[in-house]
């Protein structure tokens, strides 16, 4: 019933609009305004151009200023501060261009609207102008590109040898975080060894000794002030590691490990205090479409002071000690080493 009312109402409104339309066309015919080259509508449109410009810029400026903090995500990494700086530099340059070109355009549109008897200026070209407005953007862009390029080279440079290694593995629809353990070396894996049922979702290869002290953790825990090297891979389809507060993004690609290095500058607690929000958490999100739950591939990220981090790391139990059944997979000659490195004897 309700649907019927809506239907009738829409029908009625459309009918009325149609009537108005027919009548206004008749009036146009009578007044002959369709015959004229430019009717009064021409001036109305010209004025609307100016109105659009003033209101548009006004609204954008007001909103940007009032809600600036809402959209300016806090930054907590060294390179992030640099890329933010480049972002805002580009912002000011481009903003200037947008404002100037738009003001020119709307003002010209208004000022040079059709007038009876006025003749446009026949002005087909001016090579000097063309050269100027080719060269000036070229110079400005070169400046922006070169500063971006230098930052990019630094960000993508090889990581320090002693950077803290953490493996981030993306799969439908979660992340698995693996630490290199005391040797800070994330061990080998083989996708054919992956076995969700048996409990080896990462495909850890136990013939590699580097794996004996490795451990998994349910959150991404990272130290402040020390270089971190994320070793990123994917198990099934593409995913992408996105740490918005650290300005980190890198795709996770099946069959092709990728990486990203960065240094965090604020612990979770420092950021909580800074934002005055004790609930705040850094987050890890996925930014490459990966299937139905792409939008919920979240991990919380915990940033600690370096000492706390080492302490925390030392407390973690290794994968092998939590899952001793995998001792079977360790080659005979390494078993002894595995038991010691994984700290299995501790448990017995």
């Amino acid at each position, binding site marked *: 019933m309700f649907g019927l009312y809506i239907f009738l109402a829409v029908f009625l409104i459309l009918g009325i609009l149609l009537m108005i339309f027919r009548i206004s066309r008749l009036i146009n015919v009578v007044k002959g305004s369709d015959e004229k080259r430019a009717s009064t509508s021409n001036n109305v449109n010209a004025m609307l151009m100016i109105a659009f410009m003033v209101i548009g810029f006004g609204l954008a400026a007001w909103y940007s200023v009032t809600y600036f903090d809402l959209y300016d995500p806090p930054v907590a990494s060294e390179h992030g501060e640099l890329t933010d700086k480049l972002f805002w530099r580009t912002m000011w340059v*481009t903003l200037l261009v947008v404002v100037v070109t738009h003001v020119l355009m709307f003002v010209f549109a208004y000022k040079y609207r059709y007038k009876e008897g006025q003749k446009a200026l*026949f002005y087909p070209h001016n090579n000097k102008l063309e050269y100027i407005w080719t060269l000036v953007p070229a110079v400005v862009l070169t400046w922006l590109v070169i500063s971006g*390029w230098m930052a990019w080279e630094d960000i993508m440079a090889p990581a320090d040898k002693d950077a803290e290694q953490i493996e981030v593995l993306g799969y439908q629809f979660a992340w698995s975080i693996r630490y290199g353990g005391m040797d800070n070396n994330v061990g080998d894996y083989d996708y054919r060894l992956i076995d969700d049922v048996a409990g080896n979702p990462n495909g850890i290869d136990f013939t590699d000794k580097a794996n004996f002290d490795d451990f998994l953790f349910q959150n991404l825990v990272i130290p402040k002030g020390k270089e971190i090297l994320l070793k990123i891979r994917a198990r099934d389809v593409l995913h992408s590691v996105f740490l918005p507060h650290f300005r980190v993004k890198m795709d996770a690609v099946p069959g092709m490990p990728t990486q990203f290095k960065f240094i965090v500058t604020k612990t979770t607690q420092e950021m909580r205090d800074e934002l005055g929000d004790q609930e705040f958490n850094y987050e890890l999100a996925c930014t490459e479409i990966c299937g139905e739950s792409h939008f919920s591939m979240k991990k919380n990220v915990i940033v600690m002071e370096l000492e706390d981090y080492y302490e925390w790391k030392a407390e973690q139990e290794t994968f092998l000690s939590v899952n001793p059944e995998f001792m079977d997979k360790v080659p005979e000659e390494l078993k002894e080493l595995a038991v010691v490195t994984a700290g299995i004897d501790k448990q017995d």
Partner: protein
Amino acid sequence: MATAEAHTDSHAHDHDHEHKDSFITKYIFCQDHKVIAKQFLITGMFWAIIGGAFSAIFRMQLGFPDADLGWLQPLLGKWISADGKLDTEFYLALVTMHGTIMVFFVLTAGLSGTFSNFLIPLQIGARDMASGFMNMLSYWFFFLSSVIMFISLFLETGPASGGWVVYPPLSALPQAMSGSGLGMTLWLVAMVFFIVSSLLGGINYITTVINLRTRGMSMWKLPLTIWAFFLTAVIGVLSFPVLFAAALLLVFDRSFGTSFYLSEIYIGGEALPNLGGSPILYQHLFWFLGHPEVYIVLLPALGITSEIIATNSRKPIFGYKAMVISLLGITVLSFVVWAHHMFVTGMNPFLGSIFMFLTLIIAIPSAVKVFNYLTTLWRGNIIFTPAMLFSIGLVSVFISGGITGVFLGNSAIDIQLHDTYFVVAHFHLVMGSASFFGMVAGVYHWFPKMFGRMMDRKLGYIHFWFTFVGVYLVFFPMHYIGIAGFPRRYYSFTNFDAFSGFTDLNAFISVAALITFIAQFIFLFNFVYSIFRGKKAPANPWKSNTLEWTTPINPGHGNWPGEIPPVYRWPYDYSKPGAEDDFIPQNVPFSETMESNLPHENDEIALEKDIDELVVDETGEHHDQH
């Protein structure tokens, strides 16, 4: 010197026997470029409504995540859950189909297909395309492709859902999402036919522009529309085959067990045997088309706008040569920037540096075009037809959307912005809105030539202001949420503290999008109404210089009843000092306009004899004279 073009066209002789055409040959399997253009236009409009409706649905989900969408159940069936929620995977299907439809079916086929077909023969002075038959095939391959894509919307497992770029392995493995099953197969088949259609069309456009220009129509006398369509076709012919290759390899990976894109995959509880493939290879192949594709949708719009702005400013387009050179520059550069879509895909960072430099070079010709448009408006005598309004709107969205490319092209800044709503804002303004505005402007401007009637101006104004304000209200705020880090292709944002704070703005965008979408029906009404009831069009309603306005109001097959008029001058002699009227069409010889000729133009009078003497042999033998 202009070349004389011989022209083969049997229809030139029997255009007065046209009534003998049956309905089928006249409207369906028709080889007349004007009819084919209308077929493309109407199919494109059909797809635009579907693509727009899809965005309306997923915008409702984004803007009002708690709303009960149960009332959509009669339409969407099982994709709406019992408690009135949109299925998360179907959300991705909608996004994917929206993107595919808008980019390929509306703005490639609908835009180039309509206006290249309609305007190339009319503006260069030809009776039809070089091959009417291939042209007809081009439309029917597009139609076939459309039918297949349309059918895929109704599959049990849903249409393709991996994003319009359909990156493998997601798109290669039916285990990964249900849309990667039959829906993806149909997507690939439809795209293969689409590519065939594009190539048939493109080859025809190129051949026609090179070979069939009328007497006196040298390349430097071509309207900018034709330059734009010509270069668009060149881009398409060079890049679509690469998409074809990418699609073919994907078909092999999906159906024949090859490993071009697949390696080391464990999914659905089993490890797949594929080794050694690379998903990055697909991305390179895809974007080798994908980036040129954005210029394929944009250049025709820029061409159309150049023509409309000059005509309605009553001024020559400023810097004609600079405009052509910019178009050429964009054409060449569009092939060497593709990897800017891949800065953070794990591609070698050194390649990233190279592509950053190349990308920011392409900003220069784009900037030059903008400055030339602005100078064309300066000291004009501007008539705001609906077409002119949309052209000015195009320049505006082209600036505001293009400028954010300077951020995204800078790989260091792109780390944060990649795959966020900042990108969505960027490409919707610079490619979506700009091309859409160009297309609509073209329809308003050439409607009288297409249907012999005028569209209603007032409705056009209302349509413009709703749309212009609308696209800014929809896409401008997306920059803000993008800067805040909102990833794209997210069904909802409430899972993350970092992204859940903007519900108001999201709701606002959705309302604006809905209104903008509904406003398009004003246009649709105007279009359909005016075809049948519009005011009869005069011969040259906009007092324009180009050749199409020298044809009869309703041109028949063959376009000109008698001889094709020769061309003596460029198309932009508007408001020439000394001339009585404020326009001098291209087919008026300098010898008849002594009062307004510039000194060097007086020298050309001597050459006019040559043009007049060229014999046009329309019986089929090729004459070549110099």
